[in-house]
């Protein structure tokens, strides 16, 4: 009896953390907590270093190929593997540039990750909801941020983020569609490259 009890304790003791880091909810929860810890160390002088740390932590949690496919929509089917790679690379660069510049504003944010996760697609897709309060904002109103994840061999990956119902990914679909109508997939790749070159120049 005692043996079973110990076995059970060991099993639970070992398994719970392993399982815990592997649910979509805990992935978002843990990553948010780690990001906030990193941001708290930002003091105005080490901004670049903190940004690098946060990017190194956050980027692997995303599947940018899937994100790009979702943003491009139907046009994705007609793209060659090389074009898909180029699109993903440029879109990822653009997203990282745009959003990592805003991260220091969330330094003192409170993030409340909701425990009830919405499972879809026979449990392979999950929506994790969260509420973020930035104390410096005037009315302290919580902002709803939702993450959509899917299960891969390497664990759960995020491929869609929405803020107050507006998706940061599908909001690009019409803009991408316009570029594809004008100049094909290569036209869209060029437009993204130009954009990124402009952002680099602006930041330098």
């Amino acid at each position, binding site marked *: 009896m005692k043996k079973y009890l110990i076995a059970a304790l060991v099993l639970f003791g070992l398994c719970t953390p392993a399982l815990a880091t592997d649910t979509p909810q805990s992935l978002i929860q843990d990553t948010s907590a780690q990001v906030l810890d990193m941001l708290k160390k930002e003091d105005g002088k080490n901004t670049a270093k903190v940004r690098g740390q946060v990017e190194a932590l956050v980027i692997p949690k995303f599947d940018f190929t899937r994100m790009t496919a979702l943003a491009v*929509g139907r046009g994705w089917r007609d793209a060659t593997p090389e074009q898909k*790679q180029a699109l*993903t690379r440029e879109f990822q660069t653009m997203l990282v540039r745009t959003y990592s510049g805003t991260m220091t504003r969330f330094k003192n944010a409170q993030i409340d990750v909701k425990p009830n996760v919405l499972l879809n697609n026979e449990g392979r897709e999950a929506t994790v909801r969260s509420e973020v309060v930035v104390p410096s904002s005037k009315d302290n109103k919580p902002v709803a941020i939702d993450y959509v994840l899917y299960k891969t*061999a390497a664990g759960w990956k995020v491929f869609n983020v929405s803020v107050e*119902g*507006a998706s940061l990914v599908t*909001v690009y679909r*019409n803009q991408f569609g316009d570029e594809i109508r004008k100049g094909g997939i290569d036209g869209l790749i060029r437009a993204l490259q130009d954009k990124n070159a402009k952002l680099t120049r602006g930041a330098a």
Partner: protein
Amino acid sequence: MKTPARRLLPALVASALLTACASNPNNPYDPYEPFNRKVYGFNSALDRNVVKPVAEGYRAVTPSPVRTGISNFYANLKDFYSLFNNTLRAEPEKALNDLMRFTLNSTFGLFGLIDIATPAGLADNKTTLGDTFASWGWKQSNYLVLPFFGPSTVRDGSGLGLSFSMPGPEQLVYHNTPEAAAFYGLYGVSQRERLLGLEKQLDEASLDAYTFTRDAYMQMRAKEVGTTLPKDSDEEDIDIDDLVGDDASAPAAQVAPAKP
């Protein structure tokens, strides 16, 4: 509750503003795109040359508590309209909440300058006439860019227009046209000051700022009123698993971290 107003209003607004514009079939919720783009251009030029510089000056000369007070003052007047709208929507709990907010903030909150209702636990659930129309069943409404006010829909724009024409507590504040102009001018500057910096971010994040603003606004508004946006016939039901197919497991592209 399908009132004649529901049928009449969009027709009125549409005919007054939009008959001259050729419709663009590209986007299912933006048939007035050519018109909207013109107004968007007007707003952007106005913002660049007048509103943004004034809002920056306002931020420079007023201390933060003063700006919060001014912003609270206008928010308190909106609670009055919210009370009216939640009554029309037959939401007695929310209406009572708004009544208590308005009463508390107008008296102990010194005419609304201090928001004591929110810390007291009375939720800020501002409801506009556009929300009221939506809850009466007018869920889908086309995108409409209003001069000065920016992104809106035909429904929300009609609501805003009607709200302006109704007698409300703000008419205790101003008595003639110059006073009204000052009242709304300060409101505009106060709102704009809170969004300073957004225009740069918008420019950085988008390929086409007009389309980006429209799609983000329409997605947000659709969620608020509890509906989904109409899709292009060829964009219907994209299955992401189907779309990605076998390149699903491709590793993310390597990108060097951005240098500030």
